[in-house]
């Protein structure tokens, strides 16, 4: 049995990610002409809130089915964006991290609904991919891309998701 305070500690990390993402999304002022695109920050915000609910039952305010629907829409949006960006800018434009994070979150909600999970190997595969992406992101961060905040949020999100996936498997 996992000690509750460890789950709370990871939830606190997700809370920080949610706060940072919300602040960045608000600062971008997307509702104004010339505002910056906020897709990434909104996605981080949504996923961080979803993770907080998964880690700490007492903070689970939104029904699972609503999260499954929201994440499916988010996933569809990223798939659409991936298709569009890859066509115009090549494979390098593939939003791999977002697709991976969305798919992992969706898997977590679907797997949590049916314990024991029917495809535990998939949980490990997702965890491995998330760990791999976190490592890759950190390396790129050392080379100056992407920004510290973006890479930090993604790494924290990836590690927390991988932790949750393995704990659930």
């Amino acid at each position, binding site marked *: *049995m996992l000690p509750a305070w460890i789950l709370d500690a990871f939830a606190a990390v997700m809370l920080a990610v949610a706060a940072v993402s919300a602040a960045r999304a608000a600062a971008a002022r997307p509702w104004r002409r010339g505002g910056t695109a906020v897709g990434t920050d909104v996605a981080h915000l949504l996923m961080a809130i979803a993770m907080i609910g998964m880690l700490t039952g007492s903070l689970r305010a939104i029904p699972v089915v609503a999260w499954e629907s929201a994440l499916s829409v988010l996933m569809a949006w990223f798939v659409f964006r991936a298709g569009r960006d890859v066509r115009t800018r090549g494979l390098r434009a593939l939003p791999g991290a977002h697709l991976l994070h969305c798919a992992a979150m969706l898997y977590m909600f679907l797997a949590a609904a049916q314990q024991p999970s029917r495809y535990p*190997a998939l949980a490990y595969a997702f965890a491995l991919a998330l*760990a791999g992406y976190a*490592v*890759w992101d*950190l*390396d790129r*961060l*050392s080379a100056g891309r992407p920004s510290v905040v973006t890479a930090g949020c993604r790494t924290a999100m990836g590690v927390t998701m*991988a932790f949750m996936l393995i704990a659930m498997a």
Partner: protein
Amino acid sequence: MSEIAVVAGGRAAWRDGPDTAPDTGPDTRRVLQLALAGLWLLDALLQYQPMMFSKAFGQTLAATADGNPGFIARPITWDATLIQQHAVALNVVFATIQLLLGLGIAFRPTARLALAASVAWSAGVWWFGEGLGGMLTGTANPVTGAPGAAILYALLAVLLWPARPAAARAARALWLVLWLTLAWLALQPANRAPRALHDTLASMGSGEPGRVAVLERDAAAVIGGHGLAASIVLAAAFTLVAIGVYLPRPAALSTLVLAVAIAVVIWVIGEAFGMILAGGATDPNSGPLLALLALAYWPARTAPGEGRRS
């Protein structure tokens, strides 16, 4: 022989002289370092599994003392008892250390520090967590993970050290010693007995999901009572791989491919994917590390007149 003067850590560790390749993204050595970082991160996540916070983890460690000489076994028993008494606190420390090692190696400014720390940590785990891989017990089996994953982590960290490359001779000698050790272990009485490999594989299916359990059962049935023949074949293959790094490039490449193939077979059949799917594993075992080691020794292309390229 100079053409294979090559790789450990991407060619640089073997080659004489400074690496003058232009920095156009992660080089071979950096990619291998990132793979090592990923494995440490995976280990950390496995260490955070619910089961590790119970006394069962300490009991697993205590079992590695069995068969070891007293001076090796006593510290293991002491350490295992301590872990059973403070299971939650110590496990959090262990998992977090491994998490920091993974993240530290991945982040370039801290890579050296994390690699150095990983050598020390791996050595400690090899003794206190793996009982030196059972090397002194007479029962260590290369098919199930000997000489122990932890020592392979240490070896990789040394070979992938980012500063001055390891001496080519030393790196080759390490490879030779490692694979000859595996060959020697394969021929030990406990491993060459007619039903030894069969029984080992049959037991690996326990607690595994259906398909993995069936795979183990089928593999055990194929081996049957031919344990001695299997041991001889394994020892011959290990020996061939061991001397491979001293051969000319094409032959060396073939033996490295063989090493990767052996690592995959060991991981899938001998180690049941590190028993991760059965729950309770703290690392993916030696298979992926042996494969990573083989990649670290991969010869660089050395076309005539060509500079350093990966």
